């Protein structure tokens, strides 16, 4: 682990990625300490200001400090990303393994469901869900979980299938090893690497999705600060002042850069195919 970290820091892009991710995570966690203002406190007299020493990224239409909102928005983004990807991973791994190791008919059914979910345009699924339960952080998370499960499930299934046909697994099954043991001991460790890489590259996608949903007015509840809702407000204000949309875009771009570079250098390091050049 430490070895991998050390190797990442030797790659300029990996280093940038790591620094960005650490920076964003820390600033989100410490938002309460760093943020110069209360992110939900209104100061209507100070509304729609450009960047200044007092307000690094300016203020929004309610006079709230955008820099503080961006910092706190990081908490929402990370929460959405971690919870939804964690849950999607968990369910995806479970279903993927069942599909890979279970009987053929079960595999077919699960894959059919995965394909069905994927065939729905995400936005439509989100719209229907939001209409059903109303916009909130939990809704966003639920939508993301459901729509990303197939991604992980498929990877796990493929890995499981290939491991299943391995000689040593066959031998172990013949010796009566339980399914749970085989999955836990042989399959899980094999899929965890690729999944982690996939997940780290999915984090920005998920965060962007939250922003998109907020843009359609289907994101988090006010006054919770989220990058999507900052962008959303910014869009309607854009002919008045560009600052809110810029403030909303910056963290989104940074976190995507961070996780993508980190994910890619992880992959370059872990994937043996790429590694042999080193």
């Amino acid at each position, binding site marked *: 682990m430490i070895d991998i970290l050390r190797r990442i820091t030797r790659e300029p892009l990996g280093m940038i990625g790591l620094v960005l991710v650490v920076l964003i995570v820390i600033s989100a966690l410490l938002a309460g300490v760093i943020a110069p203002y209360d992110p939900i406190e*209104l100061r209507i007299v100070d509304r729609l200001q450009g960047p200044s020493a007092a307000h690094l990224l300016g203020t929004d*239409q*309610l006079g709230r400090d955008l820099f503080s909102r961006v910092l706190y928005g990081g908490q929402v983004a990370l929460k959405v990303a971690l919870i939804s990807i964690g849950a999607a991973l968990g369910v995806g791994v479970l279903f993927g393994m069942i599909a890979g190791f279970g009987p053929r008919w079960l595999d077919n059914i699960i894959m059919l469901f995965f394909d069905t979910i994927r065939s729905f345009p995400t936005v439509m699924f989100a719209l229907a869900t939001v209409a059903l339960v109303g916009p909130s952080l939990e809704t966003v998370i639920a939508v993301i979980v459901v729509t990303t499960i197939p991604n992980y499930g498929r990877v796990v299934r493929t890995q499981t299938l290939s491991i299943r046909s391995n000689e040593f697994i066959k031998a172990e099954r013949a010796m009566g090893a339980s399914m749970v043991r085989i999955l836990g001991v042989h399959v899980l460790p094999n899929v965890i690497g690729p999944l982690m890489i996939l997940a780290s590259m999915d984090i920005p996608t998920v965060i962007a999705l939250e922003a998109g949903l907020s843009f359609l*007015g289907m994101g988090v509840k006010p006054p919770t600060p989220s990058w999507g809702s900052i962008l959303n407000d910014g869009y309607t204000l854009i*002919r008045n002042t560009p600052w809110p949309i810029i403030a909303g875009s910056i963290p989104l771009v940074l976190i995507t850069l961070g996780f993508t570079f980190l994910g890619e250098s992880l992959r370059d390091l872990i994937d043996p195919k790429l590694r042999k050049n080193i």
Partner: protein
Amino acid sequence: MQTKQRNKLILNPDRRQFLQTSGALGFAAATGALPQIVYAQGKKILKVRAYADMRSLDPALSQGITDEEIHSCIYSKLIQYKPGREWGWQLDAAESLEQLDDTHIKFKLKQDIMFTNGYGEMTAEDVKYSFERILDEKVESTNKPDWGSLKEVVVDGKYEGTIVFDEPYPPAWNIALPYIVGNIVCKKAWEEAGGRIDTTTPCGSGPYVHKEWQPKQKTILARNPDWHGGTAAFDEIHIFPIDDENTAQIAFESGDIDYTRVSLSAVVNLKASPPENSTVEDYPSLYYVWVGMNVENEVTSNQNLRKAIQHCIDVPSILQASYFGAAGAATGIIAPGLIGHREKSMVPPTADITKAKEYLAAAGMDSASVTLDVLNKAANVTTAQVIQATCAQAGINVDVNLHESGAFWSLGDKSAGERYKDVQLILNRFSMAPDPSYATAWFVTDQRGVWNWEWYSDAEFDKLEAAAKANSDQAARHQMYQKMQDMMEESGAYRFITHEATPVIYRNTIKPAFRPDGLPLLRNFSAA
């Protein structure tokens, strides 16, 4: 942007009543179109924006202001709204029009008004058919209430007739004759079509004819060479449905259109540096935005709590934050310029936290927690957050629930389950036509659980509402409507916010024509 779209459809249906759209910004407003004159291929073309796509060419099935903007170009009415800053009307197909008594209006058509496509001359029979079909159950017109107590139209001659009401119906002059249900269609053509039409029309008699509809792209109107009123100003009018106000403004700036409503947030900058060769103008609007409180809900049934909340809501802050200072505070549900408008509200626009705390104490509470349901449009969300912040100062915690439009508009619907009981505070916005009866109709006892989501009920209010609609004494009506708003406010179930505003921008190559509420009268647009 978000706002735009989702509402659009909804808006249309009710053009009159509520508009939900985003509230402030704009989409809501049913603006229509914007023009620009293009002399392409030697043709003079007016290009305007509508906030939504056309739905029907049949006035009976008209679903809102966008449809009416088209209908008023291709059909004639006895009278039309007069462009300008004050509400008024002018003759169109009628040569004369006269209120005989409280329940009879006598009209005489101009001669030689020809329907297009060879359908012949317009007669009093056509007027009778057009008006009475609105009442016909089989036509299923949702615009039926606009005709109030219309009984029948009696034909007195080829060109003459009498409109007969069961009881006095003064709103006819404001919202029936010059508006949607006042459009005159050709009896013969409509009967041939089976009594109603959809998206093509057999004939019209207005300055323009309907040439083509490209769904979600544009509607094209072309000059009617045989128009009785002279020669229409443009060879063609192109109406583009554009939901998003940012996009509409960009379309204007890039020269794609000649006129549009613009968003309130852009107005300040536009006025400071308007695009070359264009004019920005402010018009008031008739929309009314208010916070309603459900008097039947366990929490908000406490009148003192409701009054505390009334005093907690700081309208000037909302006007700043959500409406960019471009709209004024509302004193009730009836906008300035209309009969029944109140000069001031009983609870001043500015919040009074001390008073709120007194009411809270009177309610026997030192703090409270309520929910506020809002439609997920930018302005509404901003408003909700201002309310949240000021209420917190008085110890009232407001939990904001966002809803997308489909869910929002069924919130208080008692036929859609039990959800209506959970409504506590609701930020609402209705549109209306220029007669006060249009506004008060929703707050009577019968409307509880339909559109009266506050469940406000007062026998005296109901009585006044019925009487005011049928009273032809304008001064008396004025007082009655003022009184009704007083009653609403006193109940504590309403906090009036604003009537919004309609800022428009147009190219100086055209001379636009607007109703006093800033909605375009396309048939009156001309080249500068």
